[in-house]
C-alpha cells in the first residue's frame, strides 16, 4: 500500500525520466514548463541529452522495429553515446503505414520508414551534429516538392495536426513497461483524487455529465451503465474490460493496451470504486501477445507499487485485476458472450434481461466497458466533465479513435473530435486515396456497420449521424474503398466474416447469414435473379429482428447499406451480368485485341491454364499471327494482361 504523498513523491522523482520530452508533456506537467536543465541533472535518472523513442507496437514490430532498436544500441555503443542517449520502447504512434517509426527528443523529430541502414545517419547527423535527417521525415519528398517545408514542420508531423489525442494521448510518448513514466505524467492521480476526494456518486455524476458513450459499439452512456451497476445490491460486483477487439482492420484497443496499459488499469479501479466492485477482469485476445505481455507487466508493477491491491491510498477500497485470454471469437466482444467466456464456458451470448448491471459475470452485477472508453476516464476525472463535454458534438462528446484502412494513403490510427467530417478524416488526415483514384465509399462499424457513399462524405462522424445514414460507429474501423471496389463483393466479404464468426446458438444468425452469403455468392458468380434481391431483404429483416444478440441483429447491415446506396451495382450483376468495378471474376473476361497483338506469345507462356493460343490472323503491320484466349479454360488470373507490353489485353 502507498499513500497519496508517496505517489506524489514517486511522481516527483520520475519527472526527470520524461523531462526531455518536454515538448509533448509541458502542458500536463507544470514542472516541465520553463527551464528544465535542473531536472536533467538531479533525480533518480541518469542525465541523458536525447531520447530515441522506437515504436514497439505490433505494426512497427512486424516491420522490424525490434532489430532497429538493437541497431541503435549497437551504433550508440560504437560512438560511445550509450550514456548520453536513451532508447525508449513505446507503443504505437498511429502512422502505421510509415513504420517503423522513430522519434527523437528533445526536438520531437519523427522519422518514418526507418531502415537499419538509416540508424547510422540518425546517430551521426542528428544526435552528434544536431542536424535533422530531413529525408526521413514524414512524407518529406512530396512536401519538399510543394515547397511546404518550414522549420516548424521539420519538428512535428502533419499527420497529427488535425487530430486530438485523448484516448491515445500517451501512446508513443511513454514507455508502457515503466510505471514511473506513467506516474510522472499524472498517472494514477485521477484514482487518488477519486478515492480521497470523491464519493462513488460524485464519480458517476462526473461520468454522466461528461456524456462519455461506449467506444466499443453501441454507444451506451458510460455513466448510466455505472449508475445501474451501483444501484444493484450485492456483496460482490465485477468490473470488466472488453479488449476482445475483433472488427476487421480495427486496432485502437490493441494500441492503447500496448502503449498505455496503466491508463486502463487506473480507469478500471475508478469504475470499481464507483460501482462498489473490488475485482476486475480484462478479457484480451490471445492474438495480441504484445498487449498481453505489457498488461501483465503493468498489473505486476501496479501491485508492486501498492496501487492495485488492498486499501489503496490508505482507504478501505481494494481492487485487483486479472487477465483472461480470449481464443479469438468475434462474438466474445458481445458483453454476455464475453462474460460467459470469462466464466470458462463456450463463448456464447445469453438472453437479456437480466442485464449485466443486475446479473452479469458469475451472476453478479457487472459493468463492461471497452479499452478506449476506459482510456478516456482518468482524464475526465482530472480535467472535469465540462472539459470533455466541450469537445465533439452535443450528443457525442469527446474524441474517437479510428483505424484507417483500405484504399487510403496514411493507414493507421487517428483520433479526432466527434463531429469531424468523413472528408476531413479521409483527405486531410488520411492523405486521400492512393494512385489518383476516386473515393467510392467508406465502411464504418466493421461487419455490424454499413457503408457511407461518396455523396455523404461531408457527414459529421458521430453516433447519431452514422445511425441515421444506415451505418454505425462500432469500434471505429474505417475502411476506405475506391472506384475499383465492387460493393456486392464488399457485402459478401463482411458477411463471410459474420458467417465464420457466428457462435451458432440461434438459427437466424447461424443459418440466416449463411443463406444470405450463398445468395451474394450466387450473384457474384453471375447466376443471380431479381428474386434473390427480394430474398436478401426478407432474410435481412428477419435476422435483424429475431437474432439473439447484437452480432446477429447487425449482421445484415453491410448488405442493407450497400443495397441502399449501390443497388444499381446489384442490378448490374443480376440483370446485365456485369461487375461495374471489374472485381467479380465470373462476370468479366480478358480479351486480346487482335489488331494490337504482335504475336510475341508472352501471354501464352505466362498463362497457367494453357488458355492462350495462336490464331491464324496476322494484323496489318505485324509479322506474327495474333493470340486469342479460350474463355472456357481461362482462370481470370490476369497474368496475361500484366505481362503484355503492348496493351493488347483488356479486362471487361
Amino acid at each position, binding site marked *: 500500500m502507498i499513500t497519496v504523498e508517496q505517489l506524489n513523491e514517486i511522481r516527483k522523482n520520475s519527472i526527470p525520466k520524461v523531462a526531455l520530452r518536454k515538448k509533448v508533456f509541458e502542458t500536463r506537467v507544470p514542472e516541465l514548463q520553463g527551464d528544465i536543465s535542473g531536472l536533467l541533472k538531479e533525480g533518480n535518472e541518469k542525465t541523458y541529452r536525447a531520447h530515441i523513442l522506437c515504436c514497439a507496437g505490433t505494426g512497427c514490430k512486424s516491420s522490424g522495429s525490434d532489430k532497429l532498436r538493437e541497431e541503435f544500441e549497437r551504433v550508440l555503443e560504437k560512438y560511445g553515446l550509450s550514456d548520453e542517449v536513451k532508447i525508449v520502447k513505446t507503443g504505437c504512434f498511429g502512422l502505421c503505414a510509415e513504420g517503423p517509426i522513430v522519434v527523437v527528443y528533445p526536438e520531437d523529430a519523427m522519422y518514418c520508414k526507418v531502415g537499419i541502414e538509416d540508424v547510422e545517419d540518425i546517430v551521426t547527423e542528428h544526435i552528434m551534429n544536431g542536424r535533422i535527417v530531413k529525408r526521413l521525415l514524414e512524407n518529406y519528398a512530396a512536401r519538399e516538392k510543394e515547397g511546404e517545408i518550414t522549420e516548424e514542420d521539420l519538428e512535428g508531423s502533419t499527420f497529427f495536426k488535425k487530430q486530438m489525442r485523448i484516448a491515445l494521448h500517451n501512446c508513443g510518448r511513454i514507455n508502457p513497461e515503466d510505471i514511473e513514466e506513467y506516474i510522472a505524467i499524472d498517472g494514477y492521480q485521477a484514482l487518488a483524487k477519486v478515492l480521497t476526494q470523491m464519493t462513488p456518486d460524485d464519480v458517476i455524476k462526473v461520468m454522466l455529465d461528461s456524456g462519455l458513450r461506449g467506444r466499443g459499439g453501441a454507444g451506451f452512456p458510460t455513466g448510466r451503465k455505472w449508475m445501474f451497476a451501483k444501484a444493484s445490491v450485492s456483496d460482490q460486483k465485477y468490473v470488466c474490460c472488453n479488449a476482445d477487439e475483433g472488427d476487421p482492420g480495427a486496432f485502437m484497443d490493441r494500441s492503447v493496451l500496448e502503449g498505455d496499459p496503466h491508463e486502463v488499469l487506473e480507469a478500471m479501479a475508478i469504475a470499481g470504486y464507483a460501482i462498489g466492485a473490488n475485482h476486475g477482469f480484462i478479457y484480451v485476445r490471445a492474438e495480441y501477445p504484445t498487449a498481453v505481455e505489457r498488461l501483465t507487466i503493468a498489473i505486476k508493477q501496479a501491485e508492486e507499487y501498492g496501487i492495485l491491491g488492498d486499501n489503496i491510498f490508505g482507504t478501505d477500497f481494494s481492487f485487483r485485476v486479472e487477465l483472461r485470454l480470449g481464443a479469438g471469437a468475434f462474438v466474445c466482444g458481445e458483453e454476455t458472450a464475453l462474460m460467459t467466456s470469462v466464466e470458462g464456458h463456450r463463448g456464447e451470448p445469453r438472453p437479456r434481461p437480466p442485464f449485466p448491471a443486475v446479473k452479469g459475470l458469475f451472476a453478479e452485477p457487472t459493468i463492461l466497458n471497452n479499452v478506449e472508453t476506459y482510456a478516456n476516464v482518468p482524464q475526465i476525472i482530472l480535467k472535469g466533465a465540462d472539459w470533455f463535454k466541450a469537445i465533439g458534438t452535443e450528443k457525442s462528446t469527446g474524441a474517437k479513435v479510428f483505424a484507417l484502412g483500405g484504399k487510403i494513403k496514411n493507414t493507421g490510427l487517428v483520433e479526432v473530435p466527434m463531429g469531424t467530417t468523413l472528408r476531413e478524416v479521409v483527405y486531410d488526415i488520411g492523405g486521400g486515396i492512393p494512385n489518383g483514384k476516386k473515393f467510392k465509399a467508406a465502411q464504418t462499424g466493421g461487419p455490424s456497420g454499413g457503408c457511407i457513399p461518396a455523396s455523404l462524405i461531408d457527414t459529421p462522424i458521430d453516433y447519431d449521424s452514422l445511425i441515421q445514414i444506415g451505418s454505425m460507429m462500432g469500434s471505429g474501423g474505417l475502411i476506405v474503398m475506391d472506384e475499383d471496389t465492387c460493393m456486392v463483393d464488399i457485402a459478401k466479404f463482411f458477411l463471410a466474416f459474420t458467417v465464420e464468426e457466428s457462435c*451458432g446458438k440461434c*438459427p*437466424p444468425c447461424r443459418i440466416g447469414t449463411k443463406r444470405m452469403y450463398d445468395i451474394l455468392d450466387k450473384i457474384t458468380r453471375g447466376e443471380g435473379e431479381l428474386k434473390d434481391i427480394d430474398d436478401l431483404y426478407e432474410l435481412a429483416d428477419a435476422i435483424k*429482428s429475431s437474432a439473439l444478440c447484437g452480432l446477429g441483429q447487425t449482421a445484415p447491415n453491410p448488405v442493407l447499406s450497400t443495397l441502399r446506396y449501390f443497388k444499381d451495382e446489384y442490378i448490374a450483376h443480376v440483370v446485365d451480368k456485369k461487375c461495374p468495378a471489374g472485381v467479380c471474376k465470373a462476370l468479366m473476361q480478358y480479351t486480346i485485341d487482335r489488331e494490337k497483338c504482335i504475336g510475341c506469345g508472352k501471354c501464352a507462356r505466362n498463362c497457367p491454364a494453357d488458355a492462350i493460343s495462336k490464331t491464324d490472323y496476322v494484323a496489318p503491320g505485324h509479322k506474327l499471327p495474333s493470340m486469342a484466349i479460350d474463355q472456357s479454360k481461362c482462370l481470370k488470373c490476369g497474368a496475361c494482361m500484366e505481362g503484355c507490353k503492348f496493351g493488347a489485353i483488356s479486362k471487361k
Partner: protein
Amino acid sequence: MKMINLKIDGTPVTVPEGTTILEAARAAGVKIPTLCFLKDINEIGACRMCVVEIKGARALQAACVYPVSEGLEVITNSEKVRKSRKITLELILSNHDRRCLECSRSQNCELQALSKELGVNEIRFPALNEKTLLPIDDLSPSVVRDPNKCVLCRRCVSVCKNVQTVGVIDTMERGYRTVVASPFGKSLADTPCVNCGQCIAVCPTGALTEKSDKSKVWAAISDPEKYVVFQTAPAVRFSIGEAFGMPQWSPPSEDSASTRFLTPTQARTLRSWKRAPSS
C-alpha cells in the same frame, strides 16, 4: 409473492414475479410455439421460435426466457412475429435432412408439427445433398446420432450435462459448422456415455434415436434351428421380481409398456415360455 400485471395480446394478465412471458401466456391460454425450450432443463432462448413483440423493444424477444415486468405489453401473433417464426423455421429446415418418410420420428416429431402449425409449405433453399450430409454415428450400443436431423436446440446437451451429470455431448465448432458432438468428434461409443437414453427422450426430432435391433430379433425368431429366449423390458421387474415378493416368473402384464407392442404370436411365445418348468 409480488404479482405482476401485464398485457398479452391486449388481455390483462396477472402472474407472480419471476414468471416468463411464455408461462404467463400459457396461463392466459395463449399458445406460443417453442422448440428448444424444456422447462427447468433447457431455458436458453436459442431457437427463436417463441419470439414475441414487446412494446418499446427494438428486436423481437424470446418469450421462454423473458421475465415479466409491470406494465409489459406483449404481442404474440403479429404479422412481424408470424413472419419471423416462419422464416426461422424455414432456415432450420433448410439445414435439415428432410426425408421424413424414412425417419423413425415421422408424425411424432416436434419440428414436423411446428412446420404444419406455422404453415411452412415451401422451402426456398436447396435440400442437403450427399456433399453436405454429415456422417451418422451408430457405433454406440443403444443411441444413434444423426447430425443431419439435429436442430441444435441443445436439450440433449442440457439433460446429459445438468440432469444426468454425464456430459458426453456438447456443441462443437461454431457458426454454420456447429454440431452437437462428443469430445474430439469421437463416437458416442468411445465416450463414458451411460446409455441412459435421456438425450433421446428430450430430442424434438429424429437426431437422437434408439438403436433398433428389430431385424436381428426377427431373424432369430424366424430361424427354425434356434431356441429364442426373450427378455423384455422392464427387465428388472421380470427377471428379479421374486426378490421383491412377486411370484416367480411373474410375467409383465400384457398391457404393460414393454409388451404392448408384441404381436399375438410373440405374446403366445412369451406365455408358453413362462409356463415352462424351470430346469
